[in-house]
């Protein structure tokens, strides 16, 4: 499969819509999202759900990768503490989530763009509510434009390096 260039079509278009990538655990939150569907609980369409067996499978790199590829927000859904299908996967998620928040802060990614929520299989309403809240929150924050920021950073770095090189050449000359 050929490598596709990363685009930020939505970011450049006038009618920007936030895009949320959601990692839902198979047992609680994914099932709750199914229940929201079965019960026809409407919610914002700006979310794309990726199923994992446990929220503990959510590698922090997945979150960073999602932001790097144009996500404006990332939602992680797991079982309530004490109810994890794998005993305590969600506690491990929680620890990683706090660490990751620090990293994101250092990268200049606002706090509100990453959210961890405990949603039990029976809480279809909570799925709809959480997604709607998150979309509103991210909408208020505006587009993340991380892909564009990367390009800007790269350009800035390249110009600094070029300048340094030319100064070096000048010194030696």
């Amino acid at each position: 499969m050929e490598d596709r260039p990363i685009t930020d079509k939505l970011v450049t278009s006038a009618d920007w819509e936030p895009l949320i990538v959601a990692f839902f655990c198979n047992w609680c939150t994914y099932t709750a999202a199914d229940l929201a569907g079965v019960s026809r609980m409407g919610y914002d369409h700006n979310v794309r759900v990726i199923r994992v067996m446990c929220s503990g499978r959510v590698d922090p790199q997945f979150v960073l990768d999602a932001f790097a590829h144009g996500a404006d927000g990332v939602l992680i859904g797991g079982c309530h503490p004490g109810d994890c299908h794998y005993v305590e996967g969600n506690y491990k998620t929680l620890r990683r989530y706090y660490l990751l928040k620090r990293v994101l802060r250092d990268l200049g990614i606002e706090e509100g763009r990453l959210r961890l929520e405990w949603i039990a299989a029976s809480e279809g309403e909570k799925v709809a509510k959480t997604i709607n809240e998150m979309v509103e929150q991210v909408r208020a924050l505006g587009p993340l434009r991380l892909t564009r920021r990367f390009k800007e950073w790269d350009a800035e770095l390249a110009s600094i390096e070029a300048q340094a090189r030319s100064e070096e050449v000048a010194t030696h000359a």
Partner: protein
Amino acid sequence: MSEPKNGEVRIGVYVCHCGANIADTVDVKAVAEYAASLPGVVVARDYKYMCSDPGQELIQEDIHNLSLNRVVVAACSPSLHENTFRGAAERAGLNPFFVQMVNIREHDSWVHSDREAATEKAKDLVRAAVRRVYFHKPLEKRRVPIHSEVLVVGGGIAGIHAALTVANSGKRVYLVEREPTIGGHMAQYDKTFPTLDCAACILTPKMSAVKAHPNITLWTYSEVVSVDGSVGDYKVVVKRKPRYVREDLCIGCLQCIDACVFKEAKFDDEFNLGLSKRKPIYIPFPQATPKVVVIDPEACIQLRTGKCKKTCLEACAERGAIDFEQQEIYEEIHVGSIIIATGYQTFDPRRLPQYGYGKYPNVYTTLEVERLVNASGPTGGQVITRDGRVPKSVGFILCVGSRDERTNRWCSRVCCMTSLKLAHLVKEHTGAEVFIFYIDMRAAGKGYEEFYQRVLNEGVHFVRGRVAEITDWAMDPSEEGKLVARVEDTNTGFVRRIPLDMVVLAVGIEPQSDALNVQRLFGIGCSMDGFFLEKHPKLAPAPTYTDGIFIAGVCQGPKDIPDSVMQAGYAAAEAIALADTGYFELEPNTAYIIEEECSGCKTCIPLCPYQAITFNEEKGKASINEVLCKGCGTCVAACPSGSIKQNLFEDEEIFSEIEGVLAYA
């Protein structure tokens, strides 16, 4: 055909209309057209019902004719039809794990109304799956052997029926009940609706069948304290509480009870809801099974102080069944599957003080009246009030604690019929004038509506309206010494005051107070209302999300006796089928280690909740026992060198999915 020739990936994409369920909101043709343009996609089709036989054949033919080696089905949730489409691929000779489902129904068409946005979302999700499936590998399902023994938790009618069904199929059953006898709530009833057959006459033979069954080990006065293992091999520890009477020696002659130093019974009898008294040594009711007495350690002088004359011991001298030294015993058993039938509790009407329960002695609950009308109950079947009068007027208040935002939101399903039955019985026993205060009458069941008509014809008064208050404050002489129901009759629009000698509250059904502990002990889910969660509300109402654990009876949600028995039979059938198959196929989503890449940092080891990861000191590498691994993937996410992989959820698969949903091609 599992591996592509010269590595070529040939993907088929199938977009389901699901009748109008998807097609009404998602432009399925546009999604299929779009999918056809994606790299690696050889064919993309849309079809009315992909899960139907012709739909599946479509996929199978394409696998054959177009040499497909990857299949993407955009339809409903994988929890519904993943196995269906994996099966189709398998029948066409393709490894079933080359199939990826895209959930464009539950997660798209059913939750969005904007056709354009929903179609775009479907395209994104399909693109992600196409990219993901590219990295799929052929995998094998692991089979675990199944122990044929079954544990049934709870000895009410559901547990009894489940245990007998499994035992009759030749499997060994452990029935664990925490009370001193089996029988549950049904044993407390007098008659059953709508046939009015006597509850004891249909229940007690089943109770003795349980006791006598060679395949059933009955442990009453016992509780499950720990559950370990998984489907096929659950290790369960059961605590057997001391009843201070040896079950193997007691013959149920009850002479010890007569001999007890307490000449009068003075402790509340739980079985009769405190309407009668018992001694410290007692039997819950005459037909209790096993017919073994039990000593209440809170009431027994010997057990409290060690200074009793022990007249009971003398009475039992010959048999020597009484044993004050008895201790708790912990038994460990291995079972293949578990049926949970832990039942319910009734709503405590003290939470609604306007009805005066606990304040006015002549306000009762339906369960208490069951005991009053019962020939073997505290009054020998006489319906008399606490002050010893035969009531001339009786009022039933329905939906007490049910269908109410302030208490329980759900309909408890049996209270209407229970009240109709008791109205009939009370009228029969006393000739009293009977009122039923209802907000809706619900008589849905075979013969139920007919029973309602019968009770109507018997002259019971039906008043539609929620009773505002029960008071003993008399406004005129006819109300003196009576309770008065203040109610707006919504059929006539008048506020009425109805004087009553006896008020019966049709209390709702709610989960056991310790249901949350039970849920956690067995690792199953609870729905919003606290009842145990079934795998699918329509198609799998007895299995749970935990393989090998089934639920039956009211612990899953309010239901009457026939429904409890049906669900118990269904749970038993599932347990029997599992045992007879002899094995269970596990998803291959377990983790494994690429040894060459493992740096031996040991990060993964403490993260595993199943102790499936060990450290090989000799090699300096971690190693995963795939039999113990349940496939959560927590270790995979944590491995700093990326040397742990998870089947079906490999990094490449998830990264490509992430990039797929975000790539605006």
